[in-house]
């Protein structure tokens, strides 16, 4: 059973189905985000539905591009045998 589940995620044939499920789940989460109870909150964004979705996506983008910037332009990434 585990094998079937894992294979589902691996097989190239199922990729369209996987995308569709993924998109559906994203939509479901955003909708749910609008429906939940927002009485308690510390900061302004705690009262904004959809904030987490946008923040998550932007965080991901920021991380990827800032890191690659430091790595390549910032000179952190070097050849594998740099120290040897």
């Amino acid at each position, binding site marked *: 059973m*585990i*094998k079937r*589940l*894992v*294979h589902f*995620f*691996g097989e190239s044939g199922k990729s369209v189905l996987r995308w569709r499920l*993924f998109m559906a*789940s*994203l939509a479901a*989460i*955003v909708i*749910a*985000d609008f*429906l*939940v*109870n*927002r009485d*308690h*909150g*510390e*900061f302004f964004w*705690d009262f904004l539905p*959809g904030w*987490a*979705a*946008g*923040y*998550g*996506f932007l*965080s*991901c*983008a*920021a*991380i*990827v*591009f*800032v*890191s*690659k910037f*430091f*790595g390549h332009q910032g*000179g*952190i*990434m*070097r*050849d*594998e045998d*740099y*120290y040897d």
Partner: protein
Amino acid sequence: MTDWVHPALVFVVGALVLPLLKGRLLQVWLLVIPAAAVAAVAAMTPGEFGGFEFLGVRLLIGKVDKLSLVFAWVFTIMAFIGCVYSLHVRGPAQHVAAFLYIGSALGVVFAGDWFTLLVSWEIMAFASAYLIFASRQAPAVRAGMRYLMVHITGGVLLFGGIVLHGMETGSYLFGPLENTGGLAYSLILISFILNAAVPPLNAWLTDAYPEATVTGAVFLSAFTTKTAVYVLIRAYPGTEILIWLGAAMALYGVIYAVLENDCRRLLAYHIVSQVGYMVVGVGIGTEMALNGTASHAFAHIFYKGLLFMGAGAVIHMTGRRKLTELGGLYRTMPWTVALYMIGAFAISAFPFFSGFVTKSMVIAAAAGDNRAAVVLMLTVASSGTFLHTGLKLPYYMFFAKDCGLRPKEPPINMLLAMGVAAVLCIGIGLWPGVLYDLLPYPVDYAPYTGAHITGSLSILMFTALGFFLFLRSLDPERTISLDTDWLYRKAARWFMWFAEKPVARWEGMVSGLSDTVIWRSLNAAARGSLSSDRDIVDAFVNGVARTALAWGASARRMQTGVVTHYAGAMIGGVLASIALYVLLRSG
């Protein structure tokens, strides 16, 4: 009071007996010892045990309260899991090292005084270093030496700090430290954050953990950093600077992880990131924050262990560790993939997994303390965590391109160990109350609110969206990243140049003085001053030579010329001293 067993003692005894065992008996012992330690922890009641005097200092080896108990629970349970995982390792050495490592970590956890803490701290460094050396490859040996040197330096700073603290306050009892502006406060703080791998003192971890043995890394991931977190909770709760160090740390780890190609180094950078959350919690210092730190540490040990076990299983079965060389393994290792992913979901704080009820407590504590920037930074780090451990690593290791290998599932003991950890990861997520009851302060936090669930899922799933959209940018590259270890790796070369050139030249000159200056002047003095007494000297020399012969040394080797000059110098010295004496006496 008398029926309290220090779990460290269980491990030390276990380690001493280990070399005598082989085969099945060894494996049974490997399971019995941690199980006994868990039982010892279960049987404990809070209190103070094991006080005695040594070198005039009052020691306390058993300070049992909720905080030490919660760490003791997770340490001993993880010890059991790690031992199951390493059952297949032949030969006692690594197991002995692991036992001593765990035992000394427990020694720190229960230490009621600084002296016990220091002794345990030093033993931890050596025992854990063994697990790195044990790989025996040249890079591992070098990394192990760097690791050990960093920890010895940290231990030396701790030693200095403890002595200063003891002299300042007159007491060696382990407790919160006040910032009196003295050196002790800073030295101890530096040595603690070194072990916690706070940047810029983090390079030892990311340098050495990927070089450890497959089974050794599992132990390493659990103990050193969490012990450091424990002592930070005890000694520096509410220290403002830790909040910012921790938040920066959380992001630091995440940024480096993007660039990383070695799968275990990626996970090592994640340790840095996760410990960042814990350090933030210590810095905030409120009851909820400290609860959050302790619970996060608890959950982290299991899911990080699970991740290292999964990556270790891949290395064990394929011999490869670089993401550029892996891929497509899902076909033949589905169980490994599944168990790994449970760890990944746990660390990412998916609802119904352990991270959800623990990591978020720290963030909530930060929110409760009105720290907007910290909350935002930690949330970015959460996104990064899922990005790397839940998406990038498994994608490039198990899926994506096919590297051509078809490894089987790892041995059953490794799968079982991962299974136990996975069960705990899910169990804590579903029944957080069990963990919450162990926490030092009463818990006022309800993780399963609608907003929290959708908020977490949003962050995670939209991070995933980003992952798939930016997939090309995330492809691993065959590089290494320079971290702060560059400083001491390069500096070490310059230091050795200094040692070998100027210092050596000085030493050669000083040592050669005897031959260059002194010998020649002695010869000159002997020849000059005693030319008239050569006969007496020669007679004396013959006497010396005869005695020397009688001792078995060949006379020709004595090179009489040399002896003349030398004996002459000696006699000259005696004569000079007598002359001086007579002069002074009469004067």
